[in-house]
């Protein structure tokens, strides 16, 4: 039977609850956002006693459905001040799902100045005091827990950034190779740090597993779904070969690759940091060009990147990180970017927020553009150690912009804008502006249709159709984020007619229900509205659905495009 695990850090008690009927049909983002909206006062301090940290596997997580192993984490975000859901791969989601745990809710703050860990197993969850691993990086935590509790142990952990409650801190999840995937965005690591939980270990021995209501129907649908993923050129060939970093060259060519803190749309040294170069480098050095972030992933967009001596440097090395430190900070050395990626994983800090932050820090004169050695030092010596400068940097792009009086600060709702310039890829600008999460490319990935010719084509340089495109994708994404599916299933789902019905069939077969396509769309709409309402109650208005001023006033080369949407045009987004 599915259950809710509730942990109260104020009185150090735990409870096993049955799932309320109204939560039964929800999973992943749908569930974390519903719980946060229902139980967290929107005006609370995100690091105070009234915020809650919620983990939820998706509706299909733990089943044999391909690419269904994502875990959602939700809370009020200390970075944006609004609702937050951030999902990640790794092994924890499938373990929690097999244990029958629909959600883990952590509430309250400890009274004593002590740190704790949580241990989840088939009997529930226990709270223990933690002393040994405080101050340690995430890799050391995982290594220690595997030595203590066994190789199979699932781990959710924070690094020094989370302990120090930096607003760019993430929550790390152990992956199938004992490395790290992250709930990156929105500072959820600081929320976990505020509750003084260093890590959560998971043991799924004796787990009841997942019951499928109609196994035969599930098997047929799962096969159709997996075939669609493998048949589509993006999920079946491009992503497994080059990783997400295949995007550097195409965004550069299209003039939408934000460079030198969003002042130009093309980076001269793009080829040095491109997916093509990265692929050849990995193969030459004996790394792995293909790697899954969770068991059952058949896209395998991740990889293992080695140094020139063939020694491991990092994995899960993503386009966003490479763009941010590469083009946006003008660093043309992939090895240094890989080292920074590994450091950010260990410190436990969002690699998108931190990369955007470094672009602003370079503009502020804290370090020169392109200075990778100083960037590595700042990560290790300042952010990792929590010096006063390190805390400003660890607060993300907005924090540095404020502290140093920078006016070109690419954030929405204080969250760093990712790897696509909204002036030359206008659809993604609508997503950045309106997303309930703050600037977030994954919440409505218009790049598919604006740049990649997936799901049709909408001219990236024109305003026509962008609001509708972003809206439709944000609705669909909210629903997909509730299934536990990797967002990259959207590529085949947009182009291959059998893909989405097969996904719905799997949900129906899993639960013995009869959802239709319309039900799924309505679920997506409902989630967005719940999140939007939370943000309104937290103090956001339509004036927060705006891009920074400089996008309107500074044309970006090569297209010399500006952000030219009127307020009324943007506000049309919420008209559904």
């Amino acid at each position, binding site marked *: 039977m599915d259950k809710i695990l509730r942990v109260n850090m104020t009185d150090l008690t735990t409870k096993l609850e049955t799932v309320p009927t109204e939560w039964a049909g929800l999973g992943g983002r749908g569930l974390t956002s519903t719980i946060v909206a229902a139980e967290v006062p929107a005006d609370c301090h995100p690091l105070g006693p009234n915020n809650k940290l919620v983990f939820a596997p998706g509706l299909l997580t733990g089943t044999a459905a391909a690419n269904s192993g994502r875990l959602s984490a939700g809370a009020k975000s200390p970075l944006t001040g609004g609702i937050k859901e951030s999902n990640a791969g790794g092994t924890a989601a499938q373990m929690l799902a097999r244990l029958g745990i629909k959600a883990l809710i952590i509430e309250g703050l400890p009274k004593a100045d002590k740190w704790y860990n949580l241990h989840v197993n088939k009997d529930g969850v226990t709270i223990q005091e933690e002393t040994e691993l405080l101050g340690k990086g995430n890799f050391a935590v995982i290594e220690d827990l595997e030595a203590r509790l066994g190789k199979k142990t699932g781990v959710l952990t924070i690094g020094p950034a989370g302990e120090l409650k930096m607003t760019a801190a993430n929550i790390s999840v152990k992956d199938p190779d004992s490395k790290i995937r992250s709930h990156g965005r929105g500072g959820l690591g600081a929320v976990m740090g505020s509750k003084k939980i260093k890590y959560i270990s998971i043991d799924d021995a004796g787990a009841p597993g997942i019951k499928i209501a109609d196994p035969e129907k599930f098997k047929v649908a799962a096969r159709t779904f997996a075939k669609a993923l493998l048949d589509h050129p993006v999920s079946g060939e491009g992503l497994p070969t080059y990783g997400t970093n295949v*995007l550097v060259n*195409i965004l550069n*060519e299209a003039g939408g690759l934000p460079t030198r803190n969003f002042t130009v749309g093309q980076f001269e040294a793009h080829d040095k940091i491109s997916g093509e170069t990265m692929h050849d480098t990995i193969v030459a050095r004996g790394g792995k060009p293909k790697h899954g972030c969770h068991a059952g992933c058949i896209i395998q967009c991740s990889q293992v990147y080695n140094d020139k001596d063939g020694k491991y440097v990092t994995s899960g090395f993503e386009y966003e990180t490479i763009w941010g430190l590469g083009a946006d900070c003008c660093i043309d050395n992939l090895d240094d970017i890989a080292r920074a990626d590994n450091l950010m994983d260990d410190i436990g800090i969002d690699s998108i927020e931190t990369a955007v932050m470094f672009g602003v820090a370079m503009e502020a004169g804290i370090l020169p553009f392109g200075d990778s050695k100083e960037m590595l030092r700042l990560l290790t010596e300042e952010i990792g150690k929590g010096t006063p400068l390190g805390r400003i940097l660890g607060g993300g792009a907005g924090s540095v912009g404020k502290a140093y009086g920078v006016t070109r600060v690419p954030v929405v709702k204080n969250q760093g804008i990712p790897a696509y310039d909204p002036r030359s890829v206008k659809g993604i600008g609508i997503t950045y502006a309106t997303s309930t999460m703050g600037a977030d490319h994954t919440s409505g990935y218009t790049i598919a249709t604006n740049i*990649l010719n997936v799901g049709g084509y909408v001219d990236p340089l024109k305003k026509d159709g962008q609001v509708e495109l972003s809206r439709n994708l944000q609705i669909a994404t909210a629903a997909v984020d509730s299934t536990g599916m990797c967002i990259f299933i959207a590529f085949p789902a947009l182009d291959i007619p059998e893909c989405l019905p097969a996904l719905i069939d799997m949900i129906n077969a899993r639960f013995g229900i009869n959802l239709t396509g319309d039900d799924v769309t309505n679920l997506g709409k409902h989630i967005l509205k719940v999140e939007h309402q939370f943000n309104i109650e937290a103090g956001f208005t339509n004036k927060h659905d705006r891009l920074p001023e400089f996008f309107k006033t500074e044309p970006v080369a090569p297209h010399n495009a500006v952000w030219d949407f009127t307020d009324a045009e943007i506000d049309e987004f919420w008209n559904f």
Partner: protein
Amino acid sequence: MHITVKLFATFRNGRFKVAQQEHPDGTDCRKIVLELGLTEEEIGIILVNSRHATLDHLLQDGDTLALFPLVGGG
């Protein structure tokens, strides 16, 4: 006329990254694609001078043509 042709991802295998080519006036993208031994079906994205274009697009002297298979990421 003079055209710069750029190839990306799998299109580079056994070909090139960037080449300078001479073509007669009135050459469209399709002709260059076929001359490269690529098929129309393989082409995911065509950019001419950083703008999206179709196979029928007529090239002008000095244009840069970039060809990609369907790719994606995040």
